[in-house]
């Protein structure tokens, strides 16, 4: 009888202390490390996330390391793969294809993924497992000065001939047809992928795999060459000093009416509206050879978590805040001027191009560029090709040289 009592007491004490411990663990302060690869428009969202997190889970603190996604995210990831990844990594959707196969990312819990749109899952899922939570999205295409188009009675071009008509009309009025800032090689790389989505990947969604298998090449593919050649079309019809012109100066000139169109993405919206809150712009997909180009959609900020984190609970709580706090989401979307990837959340900033986006969405004329970015990776491939394109436009290399160089780096076209 005594023994039984002792055992029961012991069991009660044990479970009480367990409950006490878990309760204590809930209150215990946890610090999570975050590596955030940011682009021009994202810098600053970390403060918003900190605020929202502090309200709901004050015991969790995030230790941020914010770097430029284009230049420093990959080196930092390489560094940390040596010593231990941060608990949370914020990059772009295409990063999942690079890092998940290394076995270092954890699956994202279904309850968090369900808060997002289905489109958010497709390209961050490998072999049925989803490794990234896509938070927002960008649209890419040709931004145009809506007022200018209306004044001049210009129609949205669907074919190359239509586009040429507008270019000619612009030149007559001494307006530069295209705004561009080719001093940033990444801009050349970005528009080239936009072109390839609508001339190469629309016909063959596995072009990259075939390229690596030796079945197709840049030197043989008329479609790939067309995509490269559109760069020349822009170069011939843009600012003379485009190779010296920096992004914000380029956007300022467009807002001031010196240019009619710019092949770009949602990141330009922040600049446009900073310079003139009332700038009236729209977006249309760059015309392709078959007259059926689709508007480009890019899942952008993607949250990944480390497979070897010691604080999975805390990490999950952060995911919870991100997926359930609608005010935070709207704040971030409004700040970055991007589209929502969470269900039932829409940004409130006035986006003049929204009606164009909705139109293409309703006609099902939208395509996800992650397909292209997974088939031909950015770092080491697209980026390097862009340099060769720039050299060709500058006259330092022939077109064949540029194509041959792209072919020569076939091994770098995939992350694995």
């Amino acid at each position, binding site marked *: 009888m005594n023994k039984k009592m002792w055992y029961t007491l012991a069991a009660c004490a044990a479970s009480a202390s367990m409950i006490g411990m878990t309760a204590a663990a809930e209150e215990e302060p946890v610090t999570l490390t975050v590596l955030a690869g*940011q*682009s*021009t428009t*994202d*810098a600053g969202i970390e403060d918003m996330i900190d605020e929202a997190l502090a309200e709901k889970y004050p015991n969790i603190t995030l*230790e*941020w*390391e*914010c*770097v*430029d*996604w*284009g*230049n*420093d995210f990959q*080196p*930092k990831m*390489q*560094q940390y793969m*040596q*010593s231990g990844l941060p608990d949370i990594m914020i990059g772009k959707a295409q990063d999942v294809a690079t890092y998940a196969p290394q076995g270092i990312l954890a699956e994202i819990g279904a309850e968090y993924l369900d808060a997002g749109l289905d489109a958010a899952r497709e390209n961050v899922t490998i072999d049925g497992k989803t490794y990234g939570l896509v938070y927002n999205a960008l649209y890419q295409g040709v931004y145009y000065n809506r007022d200018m188009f209306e004044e001049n009675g210009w129609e949205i071009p669907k074919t190359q001939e239509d586009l040429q008509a507008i270019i000619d009309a612009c030149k007559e009025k001494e307006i530069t047809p295209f705004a561009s800032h080719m001093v940033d090689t990444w801009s050349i790389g970005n528009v080239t992928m936009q072109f390839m989505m609508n001339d190469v990947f629309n016909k063959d969604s596995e072009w990259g795999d075939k390229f690596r298998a030796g079945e197709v090449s840049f030197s043989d593919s008329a479609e790939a060459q067309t995509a490269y050649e559109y760069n020349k079309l822009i170069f011939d019809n843009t600012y003379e000093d485009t190779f010296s012109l*920096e*992004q*914000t*100066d380029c956007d*300022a000139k467009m807002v001031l009416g010196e240019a009619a169109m710019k092949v770009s993405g949602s990141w330009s919206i*922040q*600049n446009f509206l*900073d*310079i003139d809150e009332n700038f009236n712009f729209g977006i249309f997909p760059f015309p392709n050879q078959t007259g059926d180009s689709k508007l480009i959609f890019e899942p952008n900020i993607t949250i990944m978590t480390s497979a070897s984190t010691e604080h999975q609970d805390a990490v999950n709580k952060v995911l919870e805040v991100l997926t359930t706090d609608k005010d935070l989401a709207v704040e971030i979307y409004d700040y970055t001027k991007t589209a929502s990837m969470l269900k039932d959340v829409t940004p409130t900033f006035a986006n003049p191009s929204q009606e164009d986006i909705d139109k293409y969405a309703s006609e099902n004329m939208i395509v996800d560029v992650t397909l292209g970015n997974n088939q031909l990776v950015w770092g080491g491939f697209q980026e390097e090709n862009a340099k060769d394109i720039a050299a060709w436009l500058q006259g330092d290399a022939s077109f064949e040289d540029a194509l041959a160089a792209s072919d020569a780096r076939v091994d770098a076209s995939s992350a694995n």
Partner: protein
Amino acid sequence: MTGKKKEKLREEVSTKKGNPAVQAAMTLVAAMYIFPLFVIGNYSFKTKKELYLESPLALPKSLNLDNYVKAFDKLNMQTTFINTLAYTAVSVFVLAILCGVTAWAIARCKHKFFKFCYVYFIVGILIPYQALFLPIYTIGYKLNLTNTRYGIVFMYIATGISFGVFLMTSFMSTVPIELEESARIDGCSVYRTYFTIVLPLLKPAMATLIIMQAFQIWNDYLLASLYVSKKQLKTLTVAISSLFSAQSSDYTTAMAAIVISVLPIAILFMSLQKYFIKGMTVGAVKG
């Protein structure tokens, strides 16, 4: 130089008269050199709208300090400034001591090992540590040096020693051996000899070393971004460079940040100028 020769030189200098054409030319050159700095200062007071709508050469409408306030905030100035100051001061202090004693030992002891040491350290000047970034990081994290204050100081010392030893050994010939020898006869140990006799004579050398290492460490980007990436440990140069890339649209703030980061070093230089010039004199002559 003997006394007579010194006199002659002084005479030479005092009777030289400047050519007015040369004077005008140098004024023009100096103006051209200062111009970019003036442009930065100018930009730092402008607003973003002024940046795009007005000419770059126009003076700002008002001396608004908004950009400086923003720079302070975005760069997390209280933390980064103090971090940079701390890392620089400690590293330079340790370097001054280490390079001094190392160079002196190398200069005084004729043993083969020390000759080897001299070449060993000098070779370091040629090693481009930027390209060794991954191994440097690997070593760092294996020894638990990354994201610690002493880790970054360690790396600054490791990369700064080569040049420091080179500089100090070339100065050692200005320290008369006779003084050291009489100290040794009096029974001083090697250490005491150095600290009480040699060190005071090395003032110009030390000043040169301090200035040169200080501004290299203050302006360092790569090592700081590798070793101290956590927000609380970040340095000023790393914080500023993020203003050029990720937030490149905000370059009025970047300009204000540049002004803030250059001022301390400029002030250090101007205060130590006298010693620095003297130090370089000896170095240039002895080579």
